[in-house]
């Protein structure tokens, strides 16, 4: 059976189990769009800006664990997606991006809407392709999906010229692909498992430091089992939140620049640090020489380049986090059965409890009739939803408060741009998650700055009836930059004041969504409740304390125990 390139693409997406993709048409992809009516099982969500499409595909991927798919046209369509591609790359999110390209005879001629997107995205994709032969298209798509979700996941881009979309070829979809240059290593080494088990038994002050890799390898259960069975306190990076129940007494909270006092001190006093699927990012470690300086460091990661990159570790382990933890749990169970003695940890937990008591995560409560505290808004969301929702965040103060004051208990419930820190990410990501889970409550915790970066997607949310709730912590500032200016730049609030802002309530209504405003603390819960109950997308514009800061805070370049506290 001969099919056109466009048909081969859509057939192949079907074989990969894709049920929804996010895109925006243009001259170089009309042939693909022309075929959509023939593929009714493939739902296409028409966005209003290509950045929205890629973030939606990313949010879909984070919430489901499946590959997100995004389709854009050549030139500006492709470049508009680049920020979102880099966002997915930094956070290792499996996304496949299809970009249209000018016809092959025109490539390199500066044709209309031509850009070398393969060249542009080479450093921010796991791999990318320019398809020049329609007979290789099906195999390329298979490879792209395989690469995106295997090993350390990441975005893969396929650039598809218009004439290739039109040419015909026999279609057969490969069942398996293998690439001689790509063989991710999953299986743990038995000797290393034994070694780590011995270290755990000996350790008096162990800490588990979990990252996004625990979530992407579905290792949460094994990690929780390890921590609970052997009584090991757990901290997580922003990307790791949700991989360990936040209501467990072993939970220390997030670590790093805005981490908890207990987590940062536990890291600094630990004699054994088990880093699982984390990459020792500068926002986590602060001053490198002081990070976990007393600890034997075990680093488990699927990606060999993550290991020994920032921190010199004692036991490097290249393996899939879930498989390694499974093997480790089995090994430790044997050790316990054999009756081998393990170091007691009572003193360690006493110390941790003392840290937690001394400086819990907190904030100065609002003065009577004073402005609402943004942290209280996040707490109210947690209280009203009982934690049963998906939270997306924008970037900045809103992101940190959403990380600190919401008790995540399940993986894939926090969607946030951790590595790249992309403002404008949260709302489209929430739409992507809502498209995957129409029945779930999906909330974007936003700032008044970030939300304006992809606000146009309100039209998409309304058009497809994806009732995402945007809660704006509206402080009238680009808050995180303002906080840095206040603390480190002589309060020189240069270009961070957003005193001219749209009326977000009217804006929501103009798009056909519901708009709410909260000015007084006593109205907050009722208004949030009404918004959450609405069948429509909503904006809740909460006017919060303009100069509230995110604490604790470790100034850049300082050791993580040198914290500015409330």
């Amino acid at each position, binding site marked *: 059976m001969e099919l056109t390139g466009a048909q081969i693409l859509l057939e192949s997406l079907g074989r990969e189990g894709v049920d929804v993709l996010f895109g925006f048409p243009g001259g170089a992809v009309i042939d693909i769009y022309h075929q959509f009516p023939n593929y009714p099982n493939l739902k296409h969500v028409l966005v209003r800006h290509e950045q929205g499409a890629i973030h939606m595909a990313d949010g879909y991927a984070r919430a489901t664990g499946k590959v997100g798919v995004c389709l854009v046209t050549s030139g500006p369509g492709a470049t508009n997606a680049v920020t979102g591609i880099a966002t997915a790359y930094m956070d290792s999110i499996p996304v496949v991006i299809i970009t249209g390209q000018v016809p092959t005879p025109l490539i390199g001629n500066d044709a209309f809407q031509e850009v070398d997107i393969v060249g542009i995205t080479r450093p921010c994709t796991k791999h990318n392709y320019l398809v020049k032969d329609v007979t290789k298209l099906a195999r390329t798509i298979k490879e792209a999906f395989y690469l995106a979700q295997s090993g350390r996941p990441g975005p893969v881009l396929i650039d598809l010229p218009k004439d290739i979309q039109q040419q015909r070829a026999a279609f057969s979809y490969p069942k398996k692909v293998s690439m*001689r*240059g790509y063989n991710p290593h999953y299986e743990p080494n038995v000797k290393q498992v034994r070694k780590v088990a011995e270290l755990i038994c000996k350790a008096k002050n162990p800490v588990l430091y979990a990252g996004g890799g625990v979530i992407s390898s579905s290792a949460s259960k094994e990690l929780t089992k390890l921590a609970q069975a052997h009584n090991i306190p757990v901290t997580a990076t922003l990307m790791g939140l949700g991989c360990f129940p936040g209501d467990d007494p072993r939970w220390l909270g997030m670590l790093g620049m805005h981490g908890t006092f207990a987590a940062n001190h536990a890291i600094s006093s630990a004699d054994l640090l088990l880093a699982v699927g984390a990459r020792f990012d500068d926002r986590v470690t602060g001053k490198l020489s002081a990070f976990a300086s007393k600890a034997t460091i075990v680093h488990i990661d699927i*990606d*060999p380049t993550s290991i020994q990159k920032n921190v010199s570790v004692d036991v490097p382990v290249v393996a899939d986090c879930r498989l390694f933890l499974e093997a480790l749990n089995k090994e430790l169970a044997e050790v316990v059965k054999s009756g081998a003695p393990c170091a007691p940890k009572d003193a360690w937990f006493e110390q941790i409890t003392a840290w937690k008591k001394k400086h819990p995560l907190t904030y100065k409560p609002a003065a009577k009739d004073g402005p609402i505290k943004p942290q209280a808004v996040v707490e109210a969301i947690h209280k009203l939803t009982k934690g049963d929702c998906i939270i997306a965040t924008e970037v900045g103060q809103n992101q940190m408060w959403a990380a600190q004051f919401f008790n995540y208990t399940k993986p894939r419930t926090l969607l946030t741009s951790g590595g790249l820190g992309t403002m404008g990410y949260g709302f489209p990501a929430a739409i992507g998650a809502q498209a995957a889970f129409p029945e779930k409550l999906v909330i974007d915790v936003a700032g008044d700055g970030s939300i304006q970066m992809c606000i146009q997607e309100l039209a998409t949310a309304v058009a497809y009836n994806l009732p995402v709730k945007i809660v704006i912590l509206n402080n009238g500032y680009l808050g995180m930059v303002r906080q840095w200016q206040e603390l480190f730049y002589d309060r020189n609030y240069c270009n961070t004041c957003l005193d001219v802002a749209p009326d977000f309530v009217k804006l929501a209504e103009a798009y056909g969504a519901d708009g709410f405003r909260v000015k007084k603390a006593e109205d907050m819960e009722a208004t949030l409740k009404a918004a959450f109950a609405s069948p429509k997308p909503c904006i809740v514009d909460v006017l919060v304390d303009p100069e509230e800061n995110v604490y604790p805070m470790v100034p850049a370049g300082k050791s993580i125990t040198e914290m500015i506290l409330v």
Partner: protein
Amino acid sequence: MRHILSILVENEPGVLSRVSGLFSGRGFNIETLNVAPTLEDGVSIMTITTVGDEQIIEQIIKQLRKLVTVIKVVDLTEVKNVEREMMLLKVSAEDGKRAEILRIVDVFRCKVVDVGFDELTIEITGTQDKLSALINLMQRFGIKEIARTGAVAMRRSMQ
């Protein structure tokens, strides 16, 4: 320390920029780079010499291995190896200088591959040290142009 990396790659468009982009994007240095096809269809070999401490070299090798179009990476510095580079060198050779230049060519066991009225082009193969020595000696006659291949290297049979 200087390292010689031998890298087998898929011979397809963009592979060179993937490799060179990896170096530039992460602030690693390329001293020399040589690419040519191998006996196997569709596979090329790249020889890169680079300088860095152990941690940087380890990171470079891992990052190279991570590229999908890279098939194999070997650090030849870790084994006994034979390393050669070729250079073409054009030197001023007016009457009166020529005999001296030819004597040096003889001593270095290199050869003259092109002759002009007042210049000679010399082909030399050897280690980088040998090439540098020739450049040093020729400088006083006036070097007009040089072209070097960059190092190529192989593991020695007897380790």
